[in-house]
């Protein structure tokens, strides 16, 4: 890969696991996706670096978090969810309903087919949301 990398200030998020070269490391694809979503929204100006750092620190410091940082990206996703709710971008109820919908869609999708949201047996295309998925 000969990709030119731009390092976002987000890469310096408190406690972010990094490789020996200083690049963020991920254990599973959803962690990389959550990281990429955050980088993208920050670059688009949806929130500032200071706002992000504050939300992430609060989540990472919660007493129930694992001492070894194993759930670091769980904290990351929680911080992103809270920040987007606070900004009025994504209501918690809507996100939770979609989360369950994706889980039902996965269970209903046979092996070998792409998992799409409309595979959710309870999927309502016009359930108060604009456009299809």
């Amino acid at each position, binding site marked *: 890969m000969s990709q030119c990398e731009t390092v976002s200030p987000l890469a310096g998020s408190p406690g972010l696991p990094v490789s020996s070269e200083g690049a963020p490391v991920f254990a599973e694809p959803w962690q990389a996706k959550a990281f990429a979503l955050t980088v993208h929204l920050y670059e688009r100006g949806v929130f500032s670096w200071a706002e992000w750092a504050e939300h992430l620190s609060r989540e990472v410091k919660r007493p129930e978090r694992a001492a070894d940082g194993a759930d670091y990206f769980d904290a990351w996703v929680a911080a992103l969810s809270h920040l987007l709710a606070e900004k009025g971008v994504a209501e918690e109820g809507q996100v939770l309903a979609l989360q369950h919908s994706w889980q039902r869609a996965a269970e209903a999708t046979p092996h070998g087919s792409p*998992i799409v949201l409309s595979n959710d047996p309870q999927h309502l295309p016009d359930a108060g949301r604009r456009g299809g998925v």
Partner: protein
Amino acid sequence: MHSDHDHHDHDHDHDNHYSDMQARVLALETVLTEKGLIDPLALDAIVETYETKIGPRNGARVVAKAWADGAFSEWLAIDATSAIASLGYTGRQGEHMRAVFNTNETHNLVVCTLCSCYPWSVLGLPPVWYKAPAYRAKAVMDPRGVLSDFGVALPQDKKVRVWDSTAELRYLVVPQRPEGTEGWSEERLAELVTRDSMIGTGLARSAGEVAA
């Protein structure tokens, strides 16, 4: 017959499952996409950038150790899940790994249309083409055609085996060790192992391709 396809006993159809975290990230992405706040191409580009950071180097270390250490190679062949876990790479979903070794007689190729059936712990994020329905269909029907798309030409008498990953069982291809690498350290050998060579759509780099 230029290929044979490994058949599994599919005793249930529901082998797809999203953890709360996987589903929540998808839910956030769905909301943000509907609101027009994310550009899917830009997001893909960011994910691509980090793709190299999560996995393929782990798999490369597994392969390099198998090349350098006969006992590890035997362990990997018999119980890949444990052998790989011994290096600290474990899947959180409890999936099983199986290592398939390329030989002078057989080349192995892995397919699955779903990112949920990819050995993340050793290979990281699946490349975009791996998830494309066209790749899976063609890999099953015409594996040599797929290899040729990737610029891999195999001797006509070499057999191509296609392995279909499932959520429970995922495959790691152990490419053949390139010639001229006798006595190399595991670290140096790992430089020869590409992600594609561990999926089977590529071969390991030749000794000359890695700077001494």
